[in-house]
């Protein structure tokens, strides 16, 4: 059943009123982005512990983690059966499902959502695989913009050194589906250089907060706390009205 234009208009108004109400603690979305080996998961965990100690109600969501889509992706990755388009579309589906099932409900309830990787991961990896940025970006519409995006910047050499220190990168992580290089470590070095190039462009375009991830863990954590305390005062972005309105309209119909 199609939500009417009037229903969407009402939902948009309701979204704006809900997230702009100064009397309520509004939900916040903070994304941690960066290549593998940039230390963002370590920082995400430290940040979450600190937020909880400060009294925030925190929800975490990770890339490729929806209970519905993750098994579909995992089984296809295991047999190396995905083309760049299929890889992109399945990750887009996983993201959409998490936005609707985890992120938006938590934000609506005034919680703080930390996303360990957000749609920028899909953009950087898919474009590095040769897909068109415009096509990939539109797959993620209606777009939901985080209140803050921390980009953990490392060089391809540091990323490669940190990742290969403990394990061998897997087939897709190493980009072996597109580099045609047999050695996973060599393939990873080539592929991650492309991914980082895309990330750097995205960090500029989307105004991410760049964290020098070559610094010590403690220095990065202190910087993140300070930047968060400044950034959390930002008003709700009206660009998110469409994403929230579509979710609200769908939720109303599902009842």
């Amino acid at each position, binding site marked *: 059943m*199609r939500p009417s234009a009037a229903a969407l208009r009402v939902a948009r108004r309701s979204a704006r009123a809900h997230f702009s109400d100064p009397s309520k603690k509004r939900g916040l979305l903070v994304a941690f982005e960066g290549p593998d080996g940039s230390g963002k998961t370590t920082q995400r965990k430290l940040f979450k512990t600190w937020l909880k100690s400060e009294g925030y109600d925190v929800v975490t969501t990770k890339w490729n983690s929806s209970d519905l889509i993750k098994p579909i992706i995992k089984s296809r990755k295991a047999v190396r059966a995905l083309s760049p388009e299929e890889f992109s579309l399945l990750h887009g589906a996983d993201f*959409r499902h998490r936005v609707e099932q985890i992120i938006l409900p938590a934000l609506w309830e005034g919680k703080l959502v930390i996303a360990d990787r957000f749609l920028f991961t899909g953009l950087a990896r898919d474009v590095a695989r040769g897909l068109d940025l415009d096509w990939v970006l539109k797959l993620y519409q209606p777009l939901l913009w985080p209140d803050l995006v921390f980009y953990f910047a490392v060089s391809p050499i540091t990323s490669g050194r940190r990742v290969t220190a403990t394990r061998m990168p897997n087939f897709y992580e190493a980009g072996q589906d597109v580099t045609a290089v047999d050695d996973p470590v060599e393939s990873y070095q080539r592929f991650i250089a492309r991914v980082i190039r895309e990330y750097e462009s995205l960090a500029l375009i989307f105004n991410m907060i760049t964290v020098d991830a070559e610094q010590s863990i403690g220095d990065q954590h202190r910087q993140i706390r300070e930047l968060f305390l400044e950034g959390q005062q930002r008003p709700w972005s009206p660009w998110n009205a469409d994403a929230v309105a579509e979710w609200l309209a769908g939720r109303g119909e599902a009842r």
Partner: protein
Amino acid sequence: MTSPKARLVSVDGVDASAVIATARRAIDRPGRGGVSHWDASGIFQDLCVADAAAGAPSARTLLLLYAADLAFRLRWEIRPALAAGRRVVAAPYVDTAVAFGRAAGVPAGWLTNLFRFAPAAAERHFVTSVRGAAAGDGFVGLASERVHAVNRRARRKLVSGVAAHLRAQALRRARRSKR
């Protein structure tokens, strides 16, 4: 180079059994072509066994999965058949998914972008019967059941909406070919 006999034919509709029957008739001679079926990748089969606690997927999520399945069919079935100079009938193809998206309220521009990777069919056929979909058959049946798991009335309305979009599309095609 693709042979002049290579031809992509689409058959779209709500009634999965009728779509397959029409697709079989659309192959001129057996052995000279084949049918590319929905869910050749098994994505939707896997979705059916997923834990219900994972939450109901939205129309957009289901369309992204449909597109992933179509990308698989294009890579393994449709493009190789065309390259071998064969006639290939995609049943269903893009029109069924677009009609489902429009009936569910997904913007047309998003749908156009989503299926940008799929080549246009040289021949397009539409099946207008709606039997089967109500019982959860085919993409439209399964997707409607997933979007409206509890509300049967809403599910029936969605299926009728998809059928109405496809009928309108078929009419437009017929008018264009008359001109």
